[in-house]
């Protein structure tokens, strides 16, 4: 409890420029291939993507918080199984909330909703942050990963619903063509492959602009320094 209070008082959560850079430079789905199961298989409509994002938010952040607090009392071989069990505790309110938003959630998502309990995003964040880093850092990393997941899930849901069914949130949109490939897991994988390549290309472009700008600023500073010396 003291750790939570200290964290809330001394280190308020804010999306700083560093955080934004991290968000763009480290998408868990597109750069590391985490959480592929829900995105590739189940995010073929915006509603599914929203439901999965809500449940993921309920499961990921509180699980990381609790694991970070109890990490010292956990025996090493039991860390991963403990993460799955703790996640189930928070899965219940997540499922209830998602069910309130979408009453037919169980038939829509089937096994893919409980599969969030053993999601690689949760396990990787638990292994890399909750069991090693401070509470504040764990929560920041968890938030960034969650934002990255939600962004890709919604993007995938939007594109696949539009291309696969010609609808958006169930409302028909008149398109010249639709393809059933978009709603299959195969279409999900292919779309994610292209999104990952596009994301990498954008990241590289942004990095180049950033380097060019900082290089120019450095040259300007050096010139000013020389002028001042003269």
């Amino acid at each position, binding site marked *: 409890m003291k750790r939570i209070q200290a964290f809330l008082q001394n280190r308020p959560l804010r999306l700083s420029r560093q955080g934004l850079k991290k968000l763009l430079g480290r998408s868990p789905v597109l750069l590391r291939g985490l959480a592929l199961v829900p995105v590739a298989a189940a995010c073929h409509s915006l509603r599914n993507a929203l439901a999965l994002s809500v449940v993921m938010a309920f499961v990921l952040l509180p699980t990381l918080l609790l694991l970070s607090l109890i990490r010292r009392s956990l025996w090493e071989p039991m860390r991963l199984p403990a993460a799955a069990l703790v996640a*189930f505790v928070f899965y219940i309110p997540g499922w209830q909330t998602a069910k309130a938003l979408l009453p037919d959630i169980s038939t829509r998502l089937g096994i893919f909703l409980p599969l969030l309990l053993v999601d690689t995003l949760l396990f990787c964040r638990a292994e890399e942050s909750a069991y090693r880093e401070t509470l504040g850092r764990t929560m920041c990393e968890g938030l960034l990963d969650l934002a990255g997941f939600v962004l890709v899930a919604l993007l995938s849901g939007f594109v696949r619903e539009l291309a696969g069914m010609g609808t958006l949130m169930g409302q028909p949109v008149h398109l010249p063509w639709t393809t059933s490939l978009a709603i299959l897991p195969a279409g999900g994988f*292919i779309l994610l492959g292209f999104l990952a390549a596009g994301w990498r290309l954008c990241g590289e472009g942004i990095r180049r602009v950033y380097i060019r700008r900082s290089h120019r600023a450095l040259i300007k500073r050096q010139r000013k320094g020389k002028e001042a010396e003269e």
Partner: protein
Amino acid sequence: MEFLVAMLTAAFVENAVFSRALVGESIWKRQQRPMQAAVFLGMVTLLTTVLSTAMWGIRTLPTPTAMRALWEPLAALMLLWLCYLILYHLAARWMPEAAFARILSVMPKAAFSAVSLGTLLLVASRSFSLAESVGFGLGAGAGFALAVLLISWGERQLRMTDLPAPFRGLPARLIYVGLLALAFHGLIGHPVVL
């Protein structure tokens, strides 16, 4: 016959990776070390087979329909926990230290993988007979192993190909898995409207 049909269905028609995308980060990593990959795949197949049988038993217990959506994942998780604990203690007791260390590095990820939990949830949601449950579990594990082998083979080919820089690594792998999934989808007779 039931056993065989369920096994072939799980391995090909409803392949865990290609028809349900039950992949994890480990699917990309394990291929680099053949021994670890073999242990991982063997363990996944063993777990899916044994636990599907156990899940068949649990499914027959009376459960209120309203609670089913929460009861099934809880029962599956408990089964995974139980099996993991038994395997851990057996391995700790009977295996040499080096082999135990090797198996311990893959055991949690094999037990708590999407394919293990996914197979259990699928068995729980269907009205399979005992033979079908065992066959489905075995087929799911074997299908997963087949998918990993195919991905591993493709990975080697992709490494030798001169791809544009943004597509190297994960993007190329994802597109390759997507094409394989599409091939499996077509192979079993489903049409795709383009």
